[in-house]
């Protein structure tokens, strides 16, 4: 029984790591129909900047605003350089452009911080807590709470504030929103800033659990992309559920079938979703009701 619970806990913690990264994909897709394929790199940059700042000031919590700001600046850069020109030309050039910017950022990060994986000091005790016979690290709880808090804050912002309404309007119909006097260009820039800030925040959130390095985002970014597809690129709730599905599928397959095949069920699910419900389990299909 406690084995089952342990796998469940680990699956949930892993799933929330995927979900918080996938959330960033969802933010920009909603407003602009584009994605930042350099999301994994934004995560790595966030974690590495966080590591440098923690080394200087010694307080984990105070680094959060710095990292959010750095992420936002990165997002604005990606949008200006990679996405806006493609949107103007109505081309799919943003796919290659965001991948290219991601690779450039990774190379820059390798030159600044080196290619080795570094340890991120944990802000809380590294001794596990025992809940119902299963072990959980305090940091895993912080990841779950932090991810949920971030998503809740962004959702509240989108629903309650006037800027959020502009985002919702742009997401619903970009051209109509533009005609209503909303500066949709600015909204898209803002959504990129928010998306990369979320990724950077995810970076420092998970760094004490994983290791920190320029290449830490590559595998995670890809898994999170699968999560976003499974859950639906238009749904905030979808990415949480998608993350949990993939996280649990990995840990349960790893334990009950074989660790050699742990990635398979999640990816099979991805193929099934693409075949039968391309908008994702919780995504809205093309026809939108406003």
């Amino acid at each position, binding site marked *: 029984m406690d084995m089952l619970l342990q796998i469940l806990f680990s699956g949930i913690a892993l799933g929330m790591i995927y979900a918080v990264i996938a959330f960033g994909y969802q933010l920009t897709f909603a407003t602009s129909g584009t994605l930042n394929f350099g999301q994994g790199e934004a995560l790595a940059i966030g974690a590495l900047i966080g590591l440098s700042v923690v080394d200087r000031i010694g307080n984990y919590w105070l680094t959060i605003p710095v990292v959010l700001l750095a992420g936002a600046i990165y997002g604005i850069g990606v949008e200006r350089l990679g996405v806006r020109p493609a949107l103007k030309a109505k081309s799919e050039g943003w796919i290659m452009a965001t991948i290219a910017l991601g690779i450039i950022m990774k190379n820059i990060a390798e030159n600044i911080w080196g290619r080795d994986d570094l*340890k991120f000091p944990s802000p809380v005790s590294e001794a596990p807590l025992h809940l119902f016979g299963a072990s959980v*690290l305090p940091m895993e709880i912080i990841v779950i709470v932090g991810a949920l808090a971030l998503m809740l804050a962004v959702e509240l912002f989108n629903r309650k504030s006037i800027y959020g309404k502009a985002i919702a309007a742009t997401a619903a119909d970009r051209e109509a929103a533009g005609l209503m006097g909303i500066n949709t260009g600015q909204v898209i820039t803002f959504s990129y800033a928010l998306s990369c800030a979320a990724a950077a925040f995810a970076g420092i959130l998970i760094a004490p659990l994983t290791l920190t390095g320029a290449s830490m985002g590559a595998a995670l970014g890809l898994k999170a992309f699968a999560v976003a597809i499974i859950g639906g690129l238009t749904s905030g709730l979808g990415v949480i559920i998608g993350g949990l599905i993939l996280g649990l599928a990995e*840990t349960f397959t790893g334990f009950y079938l074989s660790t050699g095949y742990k*990635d398979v069920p999640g990816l099979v699910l991805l193929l099934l979703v693409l075949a039968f419900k391309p908008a994702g389990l919780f995504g809205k299909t093309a026809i939108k009701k406003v």
Partner: protein
Amino acid sequence: MFNLKMHFTTLAMAVGLACSAHAADPIRIGVSGPFTGGSSPMGVSMRDGIRLAVQEINAAGGVLGSQIQLVERDDEAKNERGAQVAQELINKEKVVAALGIVNTGVALASQRFYQEAKIPMITAVATGTQVTRQFLPPRYPESYIFRVAANDSIQSALIVDEAVERRKFKKIAILADSTNYGQLGREDLEAALKQKGIKPVAEEKFNIKDVDMTPQLLKAKAAGAEAILTYAIGPELAQIANGMAKLGWKVPMIGSWTLSMGNFIDNAGKNGEGARMPQTFIQEPNTPKRKAFIEAYQKAYKVKQIPSPMSAAQGYDAAYLMAAAIKQAGNTNGVKIREALENLREPLVGVVQTYNKPYSKQVHEAVHDIGTLAIGEVKDGQVIYAYASDKAKTGR
């Protein structure tokens, strides 16, 4: 006055040129390894060990009346870059012999160029069992690839000896990564366990950059494993050690020499204490040669702790072996140097061991059995001897 000075300088240069033309041309030896990136602690320590040996050899008059000149190239631990570097060293730089290579993949991708050009190569760090077997007779008339490092099958034998014979564990789990290194090592471990009549209770796999090792560890735990044998690299090994701490389940970790690397020791912190691994060299002055080597390295590079002591020692020994072979060959012909390596007449006191006819036509490994190796243990962030008896017997 100005003109006069100019003339004088020109004259001096001409005389200088004439003189250097009279002295014997330097013997050019290629050195390649990862000097940047994740494997660079090994690559740089190896290169510094080689440089140290060559400085000493040159200071003592060089070889065959010539100075040795090193031509160094960074292979960035990339297979395709390694192949380029080998061709450049052979065709453009005209090296007569080569030393180095840290990564097994790079060795396998690049050593065929040395083989084809009949240029002897001593692999200093890469441990893949295949490396020295690729061109061995009878499949090929002769092989130009030699090694000073301990290969994976010898390391596996020692890992299993430590787990089964010395510490009497019966239930053993293997955790290996999904790369060539991990999976070939897992096969070597299985073979070594089979010889002792033991079948592992769990064999688990993980990918590079996996962030959660819980399922693998829980399976090992559920199978009742008393020890975990590992074949992986530093960061993921650290994740295993940290994952065990999280589960509150601590069994001994015994694995390949990568457990001695900084990126395991630093990232695992106190969770990595007690991990054990085979070592050709531990930074402790237990023989006069080792004492001299450690002091010379510390003095030359102004460090207290050698970043990767094994790589430095193996690089140093590889350079001395090659110099001894060139001396015995009497010239820099690749075929003659290979023949000399396969029949070294004079014993060579090295840092890892004393080389007494280390190689023959059929044997291109300098480490032949587990007796040459010691078991190292991580203690207070450093690798020390796990057994006083190892400290007394190794390095001689």
